[in-house]
């Protein structure tokens, strides 16, 4: 427990308290407690089927939990609709990229700004000065974000036509355009080559400087060890360990969860 003091700040931006999600007979997430502190990169790791993505889906409102609560910035957001949670300040990306394929890259990012706008149907039809101003603002924000991820050149291309690595970055840019406090990234490095992964790590680090907190699901241990401030390990729906990356890396329980356990050691009582 002394380890908790090593975290960057005391202020938790996101907390899950005794979160439980059941699918039929399977308890995907079981009494899961976690905290993401402000301004840190917190990684959620665990073997396949541990329930990491389910945690994300509960946090972002896609699933309703059977039990427990999700607290964001001190406010209970359990059971809110996904779009309300986005307006509240949590943006996410998906494990298998989910862009709007037949829209341009810039339009994709502009979609992220949707929840910050308010122009209605009549405002859009009559082009009120407020609507025009808002539309200009949406475009400016989107253009700034597309510059930031280095996709300015492909702004007018359809999202489905750009390279896979660029699509990943575009999805992150779209999430950033919702002006979130917390960015929930579901395996952002999957499918990227080593140099793209390297760029992604640098980019995520730079986001933390911009005052974003990041909640990350990741399989690539280089990424996890390289950029995380805190690591939470899940197995079979429950938290089995947490701590600084180095500590977690050497935790026997974590090694056991990943590699399975050694019968001989148990018999000889050497563990």
């Amino acid at each position: 427990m002394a380890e908790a003091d090593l975290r960057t700040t005391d202020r938790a931006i996101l907390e899950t308290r005794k979160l439980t999600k059941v699918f039929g007979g399977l308890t995907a997430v079981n009494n899961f407690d976690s905290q993401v502190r402000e301004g840190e990169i917190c990684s959620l790791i665990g073997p396949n089927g541990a329930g990491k993505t389910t945690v994300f889906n509960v946090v972002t409102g896609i699933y309703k939990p059977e039990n427990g609560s999700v607290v964001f910035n001190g406010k209970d957001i359990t059971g809110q609709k996904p779009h309300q949670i986005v307006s509240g300040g949590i943006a996410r990306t998906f494990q298998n990229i989910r862009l709007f394929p037949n829209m341009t890259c810039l339009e994709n990012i502009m979609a992220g700004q949707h929840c910050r706008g308010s122009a209605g149907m009549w405002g859009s039809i009559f082009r009120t000065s407020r609507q025009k101003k808002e539309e200009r603002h949406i475009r400016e924000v989107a253009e700034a974000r597309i510059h930031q991820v280095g996709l300015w050149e492909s702004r007018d291309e359809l999202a489905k036509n750009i390279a896979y690595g660029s699509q990943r970055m575009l999805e992150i840019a779209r999430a950033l355009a919702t002006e979130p406090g917390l960015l929930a990234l579901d395996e952002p490095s999957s499918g990227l080559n080593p140099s793209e992964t390297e760029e992604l790590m640098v980019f995520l680090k730079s986001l933390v400087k911009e005052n974003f907190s990041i909640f990350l699901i990741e399989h690539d241990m280089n990424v996890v060890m390289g950029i995380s401030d805190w690591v939470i390990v899940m197995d079979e729906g429950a938290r089995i360990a947490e701590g600084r990356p180095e500590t977690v890396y050497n935790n026997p329980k974590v090694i056991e969860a990943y590699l399975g356990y050694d019968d001989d050691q148990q018999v000889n009582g050497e563990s």
Partner: protein
Amino acid sequence: MEDTRISKLNSFFSPQQGTLFAVLGIFVIYPFAANNYYIDVAFFFGIYALLGLSLNIVLGEVGLFDLGHAGFYAIGAYTTAILNTKFGVPILVLLPVSAIAAALFAYLVCSPIIHLRGDYLCIVTIGMGEIVRLSLINNPFDLTGGPNGVFGIDFPSLGSFFVIDSSIEYYFFIWIVVGFSILALIRLQNSRIGRAWNCIREDEVAANANGINVRHYKLLAFVLGAAMAGIAGNIYASKLMCVSPESFSFMESCLMFCIVLIGGMGSIPGVIIGAAVISLFPEIFRPFAMYRMLIFGTVMILMMMFRPGGAWPRRRGGADIKSVLNTWRKNG
């Protein structure tokens, strides 16, 4: 950068503006060159254009398969017919009233079914369209006149000196309405709302996860689409001076669906082309009326195979039918 963009816009717009003016010119001159019969053909082209545009909001922009759109059209037409013949309300006053009636109906009926996906929604809308038609035949409260319908509907008029009663006046009436609708829809396409609609069509889960209230925008599309169909119903009722349930059959919904598919989902010029094909097709094939549906079916199949994006797909942000069907699969 700004300069290059403006010059790009200029070079892009001038030929387009040129064609726009040419098309407008033809529209204005046409009724003076054609006889009444062909003016009426152009009038029905206008009605179908308005119906196509209204369905295009639901089907083209949001990707919701609505095969009961004739139901909304019928509500608009019957609202006009009943209020005009029974209570003597002027047709032009009933224009917004019909739109609101159809919109309200869409809101009430679609609220509970809006979460249905793809083909499920499609089947429910077919049911809705049929229920409307059958209710009209059953003559509820002695209002709809059963299978005979309602007749004796007035001309649209303002006082006694401005009366729309000739083919040529109806022609301009419908096309002015279509013109304003196109203007409004183009503005909507390029707004926050149009983008939200397209996002939902592209990926509903991602749209929701990016802060778009999917339910709200789907309902808005239905309500707006229904309101426009209601307006079309109003004009149709006053033109024919009578309405009967057989004008709002399932076939009519299918024709509207074909207009959007032929033209290109989400493409406004495409919808106009689609409407032209649907309304002029029976005229051209009048000599071989027996084979009309055969040819029509073949054309539709060939379209789907070789040009799923439609005759005039939207330059950016359009979708073809295949990609919409794929989204159903992806969303499960």
